[in-house]
């Protein structure tokens, strides 16, 4: 097994070795076993376009391409399984990476679309996060003809907003400015439905993640002169941006490093950027990378 370790990763390895002394469990499916097996089992979310979804019976999306590119770099085959999102990401870790679901589905070696949040990592000691590969932000699509200037919170006024129910944007809008936008919201079961309604002229504003919005406008070939994308700093407890990476089981850290190295190489050679662009999403690198 040959692989390069960047200086930064070396530092992480040293600090992790200190942790390992206190009693790391037996390694379950580390890097060399995945290589020996020749397949890496990757879990992605279903109904999570443009990152991953089922299209014409096949996995489709940015992270499907990404998983395959990572597998290629590790010289293995990606075996992709699409799963429904559970009640929260903590639960998804449990179901897909370390404990398993009630139907007895096989555990995955790698999960993508994981928020690389330190607090999330601390309270889920059974998993280990890779380096992030994308910086996600909450945003709005605005029909320029309907909303003249859209620069501050006050510009929303009484304009209707199409939004996926129970999403980050929904939580942000329900809690922002003491809840003054609650009656503006038109809720949909999924972002897809909200975007379809917006594109059909239902409301002048669409809320969602930047990737969601860019991909939806790209797929609909919407004109940039007519529809703009904006990020607004609204008050409230909900995070407006977070970084996305991968996660492995905590006793498969070396696999996590190998995935991280592959991601680093892809960020450097422009492969990440072109995967995102294929789906109409502007690649935004995580801070510090």
């Amino acid at each position: 097994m040959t692989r390069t370790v960047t200086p930064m990763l070396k530092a992480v390895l040293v600090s992790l070795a200190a942790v390992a002394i206190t009693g790391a469990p037996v390694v379950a499916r580390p890097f060399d076993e995945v290589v020996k097996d020749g397949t890496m089992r990757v879990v992605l979310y279903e109904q999570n376009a443009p990152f991953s979804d089922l299209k014409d019976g096949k996995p489709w999306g940015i992270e499907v391409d990404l998983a395959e590119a990572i597998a290629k770099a590790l010289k293995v085959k990606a075996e992709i399984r699409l799963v429904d999102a559970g009640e929260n990401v903590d639960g998804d870790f449990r179901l897909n990476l370390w404990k398993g679901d009630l139907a007895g589905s096989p555990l995955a070696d790698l999960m993508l679309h994981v928020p690389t949040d330190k607090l999330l990592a601390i309270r889920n000691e059974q998993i280990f996060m890779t380096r992030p590969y994308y910086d996600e932000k909450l945003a709005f699509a605005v029909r320029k003809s309907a909303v003249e200037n859209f620069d501050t919170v006050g510009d929303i006024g009484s304009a209707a907003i199409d939004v996926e129910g129970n999403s980050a944007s929904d939580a942000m809008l329900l809690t922002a400015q003491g809840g003054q936008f609650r009656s503006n919201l038109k809720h949909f079961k999924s972002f897809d439905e909200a975007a379809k309604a917006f594109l059909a002229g239902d409301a002048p504003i669409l809320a969602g993640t930047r990737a969601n919005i860019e991909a939806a406008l790209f797929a609909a070939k919407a004109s940039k002169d007519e529809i703009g994308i904006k990020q607004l700093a609204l008050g409230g407890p909900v995070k407006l941006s977070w970084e996305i990476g991968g996660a492995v089981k905590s006793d498969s850290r070396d696999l996590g490093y190998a995935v991280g190295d592959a991601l680093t190489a892809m960020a450097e050679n422009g492969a990440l950027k072109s995967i995102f662009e294929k789906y109409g999403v502007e690649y935004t690198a995580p801070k510090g990378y």
Partner: protein
Amino acid sequence: MRLRDQFLTAAGALALLVGAAAMSAPQAKEPEKAAASGGVSDQDILNDAKTPEDVVSYGLGPQAQRYSPLKAINKETIKGLVPAWSFSFGGEKQRGQESQALIKDGVIYVTGSYSRMYAIDSRTGEKLWQYEARLPEGILPCCDVVNRGAALYKNLVIFGTLDAKLVALDQKSGKVVWKKDIDDFKGGYSYTAAPLIVKGKIITGVSGGEFGIVGRVEARDAETGEIIWKRPVIEGHMGELNGKESTMTGKVNETWPGDMWKYGGGATWLGGTYDPETNLIYFGTGNPGPWNSWLRPGDNKWTASRIALNPENGEIVWGFQTTPHDGWDFDGVNEFVPFDLNKGGKTIKAGATADRNGFFYVLDRTNGKFISASPFVEKITWAKKINDDGRPDYDPAFRPGDPSKATGDEKKGKSVFAVPSFLGGKNWMPIGYSPDTKLFYVPSNEWGMDIWNEAVSYKKGAAYLGAGFTIKPIFEDHIGSLKAIDPATGKVVWNYKNKAPLWGGVLSTAGNLVFTGTPEGFLKAFDAKTGEEVWKFQTGTGVVSSPITWEQDGEQWIGITAGWGGAVPLWGGEVAKTTAGINQGGSFWAFKLPKKLATR
């Protein structure tokens, strides 16, 4: 003695046969009904509470009082109660067994975890057939893979599956007669309750906690599974009758802001009861969504409520909201048990319900009018009391904070210690009522929770506003508490304390006994008047189901499903300590009191 009994039984059967022949003669032109001989009729279901030789409905009768007139087993004779046989559900699948068994014509029908069903010879414990639903990969049941029981109708035995299907099997062969989707499991729907049969219709609710779910009650033709009516429980939604839109539930925006009623929650996951006297179906409805109450000002009807429905058309006749504007996940699906209340020399057609929120309510079952409410768990904090109009007197200090006013780096908002916890003063486990003692028997739990807005939460890889919570016991020595409650005064007459949380239903008998199971593995019997523990049996695994009793060959039998699981082991912390080390299982135990001991 024995010979004489046998003769009497044979003579009785002969008389019945003659009667049946005489009665069926004029109806010979209805082959369908003739074919149902030996099956379960509507009349059998309505009479279930009075016919101790069988149990043909969940709750021992549609009122679900869980009372049997059998009295051979009593405080004195119970020491002779012995296991007759035990049946293993087999397979590698265990987890929580919450099923109440049914018995008809010498066959026990009992469901198991993972949507399985067994038919067992009630005398010998031999398996007659078994059915295993083929569950799709990727089901995400929130709270274990339980099933709470089946319904019998004519020649069918009907139950719901974790992938939200209703399956009707032939009682004799176990073969599928019909199978219908309640909803799409991919959308977060599931089904775990025992269905209810009312006048040839099978009545079900829905389980599921995902965004987008709106609770509803549905009636189908029990023989074909075809939908007759649907009633969404959240205001603004249209009902359905015979394939056409019927009426709207409530009025749009009466108690919900904006369009949030569209996805209001109110899952009806525990099933219902039926009262033939008022001809009403009673259902409990779950909590509203999103969980934080500040995001949805208003009462949010009909979440956390009891509603009464007309079985013919699914119209809501009355509603009573136990927790208006719920902010604690007081998922008020709890069953409403009809009974006759004697108060001030009058008999009132009443009903009682022990709510997740910790209060025991008595309502007029004809119109939903509030009669009384009293706490059935201790140290309740979220409300100071229930006011005379039936609304809670909230304590604002114990409502989780307004997230739009949260400050600080983690923006947690205010953490509060709410009692009871979201698992409830009472969860799913059914209560019982004895017309002899005129007491309700309520399996309850004494626990609270720290609850706060969790800003660092993610769903499907994206930020969202979650709830953080830690469940904590209130007392050092116990969480579980089986209480006898006088519905006329609201007073707790006796209280049996159990170290682990109680998670199983009760059964009371004319023998002045109350039976219930414990996670520690015991099936226990108590003196119904005093609460004195008079008998126990260790099943070898935790008991989280509801017991039944029946008479067979002149002997009284007791039956219970055993197998540890349910929602309790899914939550860690202090509570988990009380159940650590309990092994899983999956079996049905049958006990009998041999005749020679009964007469001593």
